[in-house]
């Protein structure tokens, strides 16, 4: 019996079963041997049957499904094969096309961030050489200093200093950005003298053309 009746290959989508020779009986027995050898390694996984023009009858498909089920595997997709096989697969609720893979955005790490969930009261301070993410408020008289960016899920009324080591690309974001003083790198911006009640809106502050500007966040689309 030909050991090379099939190939099995693990992929991110699932276990790809590639039958190599015509006899379905041989394929199934080779598969059974492979699965027995693998023990519980594939257990709970899903299988993609990739045909190359071979045709399968309903019984063949059922035998495969039964064998896979014994090993706690699911026949998830049938790719290739002729019209009849495709039709059959769909009848059994097996997909015949892989879902279009969504391209993963490249996430280049920006460095480390300190995550803190605590409101900073007057006189309290927080320092981290890289980024700071704070869940909570920065009250008047409190200070937050970061070498990188500062992101606050809360209200900023104290003093925040991003890019404290001189990074002029650092930004400060908050749900309500109303600091008594805002510093990025070596620049300092202070709150306007007139304290007006203003609607709460998320903002991001950054250096643009040599001055600190704050831009409201607006939902896209």
């Amino acid at each position, binding site marked *: 019996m030909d050991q090379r009746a099939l190939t099995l290959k693990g992929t991110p989508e699932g276990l790809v079963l590639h039958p190599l020779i015509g006899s379905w009986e041989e394929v199934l027995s080779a598969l059974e041997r492979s699965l027995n050898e693998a023990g519980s390694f594939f257990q709970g996984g899903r299988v993609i049957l990739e045909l190359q023009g071979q045709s399968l009858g309903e019984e063949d498909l059922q035998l495969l499904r039964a064998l896979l089920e014994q090993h706690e595997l699911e026949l998830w997709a049938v790719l290739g094969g002729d019209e009849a096989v495709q039709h059959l697969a769909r009848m059994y609720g097996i997909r015949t096309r892989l879902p279009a893979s969504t391209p993963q955005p490249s996430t280049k790490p920006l460095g480390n961030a300190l995550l803190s969930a605590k409101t900073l009261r007057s*006189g*309290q301070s927080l320092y981290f050489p890289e980024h700071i993410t704070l869940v909570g408020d920065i009250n008047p*008289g*409190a*200070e937050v200093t970061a070498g990188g960016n500062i992101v606050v899920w809360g209200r900023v009324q104290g003093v925040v200093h991003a890019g404290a080591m001189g990074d002029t690309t650092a930004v400060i974001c908050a749900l309500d950005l109303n600091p008594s*003083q805002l510093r990025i790198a070596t620049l300092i911006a202070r709150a306007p003298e007139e304290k007006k009640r203003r609607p709460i809106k998320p903002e991001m502050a950054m250096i643009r053309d040599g001055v600190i500007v704050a831009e409201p966040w607006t939902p896209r689309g």
Partner: protein
Amino acid sequence: MAGKIITVTSGKGGVGKTTTTANLSLAMALLGKRVICIDADIGLRNLDVMLGLENRIVYDIVNVIEGRCALQKALVRDKRFSELLLLPAAQTRDKGDITEDDMNRIAHQAAELADYVFIDSPAGIEHGFRYATKPADLVLIVTYPEVTAVRDADRVIGLLEASDHTPAKLIINRIKPELVRRNEMLDADAIVDLLAIDLIGIVPEDSMILAAANRGQPAVLDPHSAAGQVFLEIARRLNGEDVPFSPLKEPSILQRLFGSLK
């Protein structure tokens, strides 16, 4: 010639030290003097807020003491009077971060740059009180016409007499003439009798003080504020002028009504 160093203290908290310091500093500036006020309440700074200068602070007194920046660089210029400068306290530090010698050195350095240096002392009689009064040429003791506040003022005077014999003068704050008349409040004479130090001002209760503090525009800037006018008189007395004590006026019924409507 070096300027005069005046520390404002009280023992008890909440009697109006910072209000007094802010108003006297501005009053002196109004009189054309060069003034530096120092907030010595490290960790509980307020003077900057009362002067409306909070958002201009970059460096503080602890930065100066630790040699991170020069005194001149830490001084915050007042937005109304260019001759009034504030040396802010550090808010994220505590009183243990400075010594009596540090404060002495900084205050005398400031006195080289100004006619008057006002130091706003922390409440209490511990370390903060000691370093704030150490450099003083004159101590202003603020009290309130209530037995506990007068008791604390007495304690402070005793401590000052026991250590440096720094001259001290008394400010009685928040007198309500109508309560004094009904014998519900200690009157100024009784307080001066007990404390036996020179009185330099009796400041009437004034609702404008609170509003002024919240706006960062001390009452002395408002010619309609009775308390503000008294602070101006105190400043002139400190300046060596002979200013008679103006009689305290009870607010008329109309004024009281008007005041409560504000």
